[in-house]
């Protein structure tokens, strides 16, 4: 079992942008941290069960998908394709997903574009914070 020491746990927390000490009452930090490191070690240790399987001579399996998935045609989304998509009438694998004019995509300046057409608008509306057509986050540099 790989040893998860405090240093490793803190490094991983930092990579995940987690502050392990946040919200802890002063004086309890060290004990809490110790507990977290222990729990972390247990989780990783549990995964170690996989290491017991003898994989000698077994090809690495990167994907459980048996059927090959043919790549997509390089055709942009169109209103028609989206409708077809919504109806579940997706083209056969390897066939273009769009039909008709490929440039007839959503026009952001068109006030008549309904929200249903505008996936982008949906996504923006779901964001915690936006400014105009931008997503916003606290300043990063």
């Amino acid at each position, binding site marked *: 079992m790989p040893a998860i020491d405090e240093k490793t746990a803190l490094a991983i927390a930092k990579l995940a942008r987690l502050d392990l000490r946040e919200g802890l009452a002063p004086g309890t930090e060290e004990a809490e941290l110790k507990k977290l490191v222990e729990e972390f070690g247990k989780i990783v240790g549990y995964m170690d069960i996989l290491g017991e399987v003898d994989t000698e001579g077994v090809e690495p399996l990167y994907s459980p998908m048996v059927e090959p*998935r043919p790549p997509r045609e*390089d055709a942009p989304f169109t209103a028609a394709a989206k409708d077809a998509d919504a109806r579940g009438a997706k083209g056969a694998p390897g066939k273009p997903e769009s039909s008709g004019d490929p440039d007839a995509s959503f026009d*952001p300046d068109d006030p008549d574009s309904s929200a249903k057409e505008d*996936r982008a608008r949906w*996504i923006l509306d779901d964001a915690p914070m936006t400014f105009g057509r931008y*997503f916003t986050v606290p*300043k990063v*540099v």
Partner: protein
Amino acid sequence: METMEPVIGLEIHAQLNTRTKLFCACPTEFGAVPNTNVCEVCTGQPGALPRMNGKALELAAKAGLALGSAVNRESLFSRKNYFYPDLPNGFQTSQLDPPICQGGSLTLELGDGTEKTVRLNRIHMEDDAGKCLHDEKRGLSLVDLNRAGTPLIEIVTEPDLSSASEAVNFLKKLHALLVRLGVTKGRMEEGEFRCDVNISLKPKGSPVLGTRAEIKNLNSFKFVGQAIEYEIERQTGVYGRGGSVSQETLHFDSEKGETRSLRSKEEAHDYRYFPQPDLPPVEISGELLARLRETLPPTPEEAKKRLVALGLKPRQAELLLERPGAPEYFHEAHKIDDDAPRIYSLMEELFLPACQKEGLDPSDSLFAPPKLAALAKLLRDGTVGRRKAQELFPDFFAKGSDPSEAVRSGNLSQITDPSELLPMVEKVAGAFEKEAKKFLSGEEKILSFLVGQVMKESRGRACPKTSAELMKNHVKERFAGAAKETV
């Protein structure tokens, strides 16, 4: 101090020339209204599944084939994990092992006439991040994800370059090749072709490499050159003072012309690559590879050989190859009329200058290759004279007319038939008897005046050579006796 020499390797990002993103059907157009070309996949919504763009795969493989890389029949996407607001998934989908292409090389001609082969380590596919704008006043970072998910290839060289000029030379050659192949549009001002430079110094002749610094995201040939020059000088200075170069990531400030530290080795990312479970391994079939190989244009050396074999002089072949679209146009015309020298000279003297004037690619001209072949035939037959061809060409070129058609309907052809020319010759000789007699008495230069009169009479259509022959004979026949009398 020992003499130090620079060791330079490049990582080039080229945006693949696709209409849609690498894993979703959002358009890749540049300059769209922020966050319009986005969907669940490229904004990293939970549960959205990526699906590979087949065109991107073909273009990446094509780049590898053209650069002599081994194209892996099966390659794998991995997640490269890091956090930044312009990376909605929290990871970049990239390739670690195996990438789509391994190895390869590009050979440079150096200034002193020698060649240098720069080895490639690998070419892999990955998606681009979005863009961040930083709003100082509001303390916000604004994120536009239109670019997120745009397909890129990263081409990684071995550290085989040893100067700024070599690096720039390499980049220019690679850029030209990838654009010619249609792998990338290569618009550097739009960030479609950009470069990271790894650079270190080592004692001359030593096999041991020094600590390297990495200069990130250079988007012009000029900046690459400047950044390398500056960095060589900086590192030389550090060693000269007895210091040591630290492994760090640098940013090149093009306004100040200097490099600045972005992050040190201690702050370096730990990307924790692992296979991307949402994507099956990338497979490329033998048939597809064979088909791609067929679409590869010949190397410049092969192309030159081919043109010379058709009857062009080496220098002519080179001139043709320097102009984008010209060799293809030549071959098309040559298929119809195999008079290579004549097709070449028509292109060189008339067609290409006209294209250049209009800013047209030869393939976009209305005056298509069969039309130039037709004009070559008319010239060879003598149906149209050289001067006439020059005179008519601008009209042919502008309208895309078929010269043989125009000649037939417009009565523009040169008159070579003696029976048609003779009456005009007789008429001129009668009208200019004095001049005709002068010719007989030995003033040969005056013949061109007489021929000129025939040209005038025929409104420019008389064949000058035939007219001159006819005139000579006619004048001798008609005035020989009289000339003797006057002598």
